[in-house]
């Protein structure tokens, strides 16, 4: 039996969804506008200067997106942006940094559905995806609270045998170059960025090569969270290609590597020695677990400054504090 069709335009010619099927025979399906996944440098979303890209696929090999294959020059530009942003960010009141981290969590919450969708495209089940996004939000809340508190716990007033008031406080180390966990799309990235910026550092982070989608979307969250441009810069690309530059750039003060490859760790340590970078290697951390959040992650990227402040000997007063 022939189905009824509208006279005039044949159905095929108004079918815009490109898959050869009309959408249950009534409405023509809209041609979706796909997102261009770009990198995040200095508060802007440029394409890689190299013009290169690679295919991000899921486990079945289906194409998810074309993603920037960043070059060393993108990294160089990102370090310039991070260095420029460091002064302002580290000079902010710690409380204000906490407010901004909280704001990031708020923005993440508002875009939960998008992150869950992207995680599922990258082979997570719905339950796994929801758990990962919830934990990412909670992790920002967690570090938001620590912003103006870790200093008190790790500072000390030191006993000295002279007329000095002597105290030690942690200060941010500077520009941090981090290679995020490669097996995770969101939680690995978030868990490495949050303690870096909570402590007042700025950073350049290389996202997961195989699961890059959430990193770019997360950059959009950062961009709408009152976080000054340049404090966090996110690149996508090949770890092996970029790691040498992450480790030997003279204007980088610390390198973080979340991977287990021994030769890579060795190379990072050697190259980082050039300007005595702080090196942190997180190769055994399970990013979905409780152990992946602690104020010690903040302290890993702090320098202890000790101040000797001369004091008068006041008549009649005794030494002590």
């Amino acid at each position: 039996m022939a189905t009824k069709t509208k006279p005039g335009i044949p159905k095929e010619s108004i079918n815009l969804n490109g898959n050869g099927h009309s959408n249950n025979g009534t409405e023509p399906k809209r041609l979706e506008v796909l997102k261009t996944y770009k990198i995040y440098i200095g508060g802007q979303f440029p394409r890689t200067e190299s013009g290169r890209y690679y295919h991000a696929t899921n486990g079945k090999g289906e194409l998810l997106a074309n993603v920037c294959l960043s070059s060393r020059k993108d990294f160089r530009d990102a370090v310039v942006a991070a260095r420029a942003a460091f002064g302002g960010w580290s000079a902010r009141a710690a409380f204000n940094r906490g407010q901004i981290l909280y704001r990031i969590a708020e923005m993440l919450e508002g875009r939960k559905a998008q992150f869950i969708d992207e995680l599922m495209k990258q082979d997570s089940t719905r339950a796994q995806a929801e758990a990962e996004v919830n934990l990412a939000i909670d992790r920002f809340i967690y570090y938001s609270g620590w912003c103006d508190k870790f200093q008190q716990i790790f500072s000390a007033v030191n006993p000295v045998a002279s007329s000095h008031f002597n105290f030690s406080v942690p200060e941010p180390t500077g520009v941090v170059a981090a290679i995020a966990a490669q097996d995770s799309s969101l939680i690995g990235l978030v868990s490495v960025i949050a303690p870096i910026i909570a402590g007042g550092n700025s950073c350049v982070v290389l996202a997961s090569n195989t699961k890059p989608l959430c990193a770019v979307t997360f950059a959009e969250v950062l961009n709408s969270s009152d976080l000054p441009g340049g404090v966090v810069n996110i690149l996508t690309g090949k770890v092996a290609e970029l790691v040498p530059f992450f480790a030997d750039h003279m204007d980088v003060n610390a390198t973080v590597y979340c991977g287990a490859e021994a030769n890579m760790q060795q190379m990072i340590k050697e190259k980082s020695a050039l300007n005595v970078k702080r090196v942190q290697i997180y190769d055994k951390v399970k990013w979905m677990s409780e152990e992946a959040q602690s104020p010690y992650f903040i302290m890993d990227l702090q320098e202890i400054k000790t101040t000797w402040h001369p004091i008068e000997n006041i008549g009649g007063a005794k030494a002590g504090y």
Partner: protein
Amino acid sequence: MIATKTIPDFSLSPRVDQVGIEERASRVTKRSIKNETKVNGLMLALNMIDLTTLEGKDTDGKVKQLCYKAQHLLDTYPGLPTVAAVCVYPSMVKVAKTALGNSGIKVAAVATAFPSGQAPRDVKIRDTKFAVDQGADEIDMVISRGKFHMGEYNFVFDEIAAVKEACGNARLKVILETGELVTYDKVRRASDIAMYAGADFIKTSTGKISPAATLPVTLVMLEAIRDFYYKTGKKIAMKPAGGISKAKLALHYLVLLNEVLGEEWMNNEWFRFGASSLANDILMQLMKQKTGVYQSADYFSID
């Protein structure tokens, strides 16, 4: 000789095609310059710098430190050239001259009521003579932009000629302050006036006004120099100043220079950069080329 030269009607200076000039200037920024060519270009740019400090807070100490830097740009990098000159206020000329000794680096002094130029002519002449007496090798004068805008081209012309006379053997750089001239037509006209009045250099800016030197404005001035050369056979030097702080931009200027005026102008007798922070950026790029490692400002002198 000026006496035998016919002085043209400056109101008939060629008009400049703004769109064309900007388009052409933007083309030179897209060249790729690599490896040895880049290193040679950077070395040349370094050798063309007028290392400058022009601040109210300048002290003898600051000038001495700058002169030391001019002679020892980066001692860990053997074979580096020195800069071309040190540029200071007239009151600092003697200090600079003593500090530079026989290093071959010239001392340039900004005179004639720099940066505004709003002073009577006799004051400007005395300012110039003072700087020359103190030992300045080069004088950077500013033109009277107000008079220029009022159409008093003869006044501007005569003033430049008078300062040139006061300079004696010192080379005269005439600062047009292109940021205050606003249009390319006026930049071209002011360039023509300066060259006919006896300028040895024409210079874009004082560095106190934004915009300072730009590629298109430099192109307009280079073309004026080229036309003047074809007409009179006399070579005039060029000095863009202000806002040139990155090595890459300096290379763009060299490309522009080479394409408009050619190789004869590619040395510090005929081209200078007025800059202070440019030197460090060039040094960082040279070190990057040498070591293969991106550099940090932490390991270079404070300018």
